[in-house]
């Protein structure tokens, strides 16, 4: 659906159900250069099980208007504003990759609004390879190819998409190339590279938190994901074997099962 956030047209997938502000809200936040489309194998499930979901397109991404936000802090604040913009008071957050930094920032800035936090393929800092950053800021398609290479585990490189007929690397690539690379991926990579508050923010988090990590993740390595989880009080950690950074697609079923259990326990539907 389209709605306004700070006066700018914003798009979020509602998982195929009409948005209902009276249902518990789960907001999904995508990673660098991507869009709501990466969440389709999680959002539709919750949308048809009593939740309202918003898989947002960050400003300038996917179907949202405006320019990309330049810092993780701004993005975190923007996600907090989304909650009020759709007439809700609180939400659970699910972030992937850069979306983990964004959702952590959102909790730090709007602690009263956030009930649970799920971090997929996260780390407390995501420093960028300088060459990759340069390529992205120059809109060089090679940046997307490199990102797809790093983002998928060995199994993902062969294929085996959970949805019959889809091919992992090219789907991700086309989602990123839907926009000018420097305006989305380039800006996002720079924001990740500049962001240094991760460890301090993580140490202050005090809400039910789940980290889902890929054992073969080369973008945010498993050990970095574990360090982040260690910073967070009582954080739950689930590791998916033989999976890279794109667990929400590479191992969509396992990811969904883990998320379902966590949401059911910590953010249940009203009885």
């Amino acid at each position: 659906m389209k709605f306004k956030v700070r006066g700018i047209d914003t798009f979020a997938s509602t998982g195929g159900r009409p948005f209902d502000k009276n249902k518990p809200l789960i907001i999904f936040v995508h990673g660098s250069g991507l869009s709501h489309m990466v969440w389709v194998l999680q959002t539709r499930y919750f949308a048809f099980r009593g939740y309202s979901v918003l898989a947002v397109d960050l400003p300038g991404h996917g179907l949202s208007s405006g320019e990309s936000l330049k810092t993780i802090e701004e993005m975190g604040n923007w996600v907090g504003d989304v909650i009020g913009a759709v007439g809700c008071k609180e939400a659970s957050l699910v972030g992937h990759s850069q979306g983990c930094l964004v959702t952590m920032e959102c909790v730090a800035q709007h602690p009263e609004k956030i009930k649970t936090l799920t971090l997929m393929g996260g780390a407390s800092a995501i420093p960028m390879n300088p060459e990759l950053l340069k390529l992205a800021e120059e809109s060089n398609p090679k940046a997307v190819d490199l990102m797809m290479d790093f983002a998928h585990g060995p199994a993902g490189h062969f294929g085996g998409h959970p949805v019959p007929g889809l091919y992992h690397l090219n789907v991700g690539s086309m989602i990123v190339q839907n926009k000018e690379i420097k305006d989305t991926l380039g800006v996002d990579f720079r924001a990740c590279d500049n962001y240094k508050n991760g460890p301090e923010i993580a140490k202050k988090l005090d809400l039910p938190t789940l980290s889902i990590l890929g054992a073969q993740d080369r973008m945010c390595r498993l050990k970095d994901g574990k360090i982040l989880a260690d910073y967070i009080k009582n954080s739950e950690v689930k590791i998916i074997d033989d999976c890279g950074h794109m667990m929400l697609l590479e191992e969509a079923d396992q990811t969904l099962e883990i998320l379902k259990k966590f949401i059911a326990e910590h953010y249940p539907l009203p009885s």
Partner: protein
Amino acid sequence: MDPKTYKFDTLSLHAGYQPSKNAGSRQVPIYQTTSYMFDDVDHAAALFNLERGGHIYSRMSNPTVQVLEERVCALEGGTAALATASGMSAIFLTIMTLCNAGDHMVVSSQLYGGTVNLFRLTLPKFGIKTTFVKPRDTEGFKKAIQPNTKGIFGELVGNPGNELMNMPEVSKIAKEAGIPLIIDSTYQTPYLCRPFEHGADLVVHSLTKWMSGNGSSMAGILVEGGTFDWMQNDKFPSMTEPYEGYHGLSFAEEFGPTAFTMMARAEGMRDMGPCLAPQNAWNILHGLETLSLRMEKHCSNALKMVEYLSNHESVAWVSHASAPGHPDKELAEKILPKGTGSMIAFGIKGGKEAGAAFINNVKLASHLANVGDARTLVIHPASATHSQMDEATLKFAGLSHDMIRLSVGLEDFEDIVNDFEDGFRAAKKPRLVANK
């Protein structure tokens, strides 16, 4: 720093398949089953509602067929693919997903005869009309577009006359009009050309041909490039507006670069059901393993054959984009740098009668209605593959009565030549042969 993603030959052997998820089986297993067990009621509901990926019923998808789909998709550089029972069903499924009654297509006139009949005779029954344009008439494609036109369709190298459509230029016309360009790339395979790199949005293949090479199995496929923005205008409401069949799902919103394939499967395979048998998918996969090797030999044999035919006293003309003086030679060198394929059309002196004598007297070359087999194939289109066309349509499609369509195989070139010499000798005495 370069990406370490797998390259073409590796993908043709490995893409789409993980042994670790299939009992360690090195070869792709044949999942000869109609249906798949659900974990519980919730799992079943989620699968039926496209909330999660997986298999329900082999009319919609099958694990063996899925490997083939991903493999071809990877080779083409596409985002998604959907295999079908034949190349014709892939085309029909594509058009039925793209168009509604009252819509219109602009289509290259030089096509396989079955495809011509589909657009000329069958689709009008569903209210879908077509304007045919000669493949070299690039401006003609633009002029033929109407407000209700939903796409441009063509074979890159037309069957059987070997005229090329200027795909990059026609793609610009399609983009300007906000409609997709659909290319039947059967003749090329992704080894010779990847149409998405030249502006196509959707690609269809008959996998029955070079992709398998073994002449054992019928199969087709639709591949999506993920390049077309279905939401750029209001021409494609079935893709962009809530779809009643899946509780108000908007395919374009939810699936973006794979929206067309998702809809073709969810609606087309559900309602029309032209599914590919897993055994056939497995046979095609075997062929794909040697695609590069075979295409190289097909092309090298074809080049020799063009030279041989061009210098033969019994041959009136030869059409192959590599031939000296072919009007599309320059374009072919640009978009088909690895070779212009193994389909040759030639005219035999003595017309239809001589052509019949030639075909009746070759022994190694097989006279049949197929192309792209590992074996050399010949046919007289006017009396076979395109025989359901009237004189005017034959002429418009670029067919003549002296035309022989040749699909050059992988045999030793000298053996093909010796066989053809027998055919040409007989063609010089057609009456004698006819009386035998």
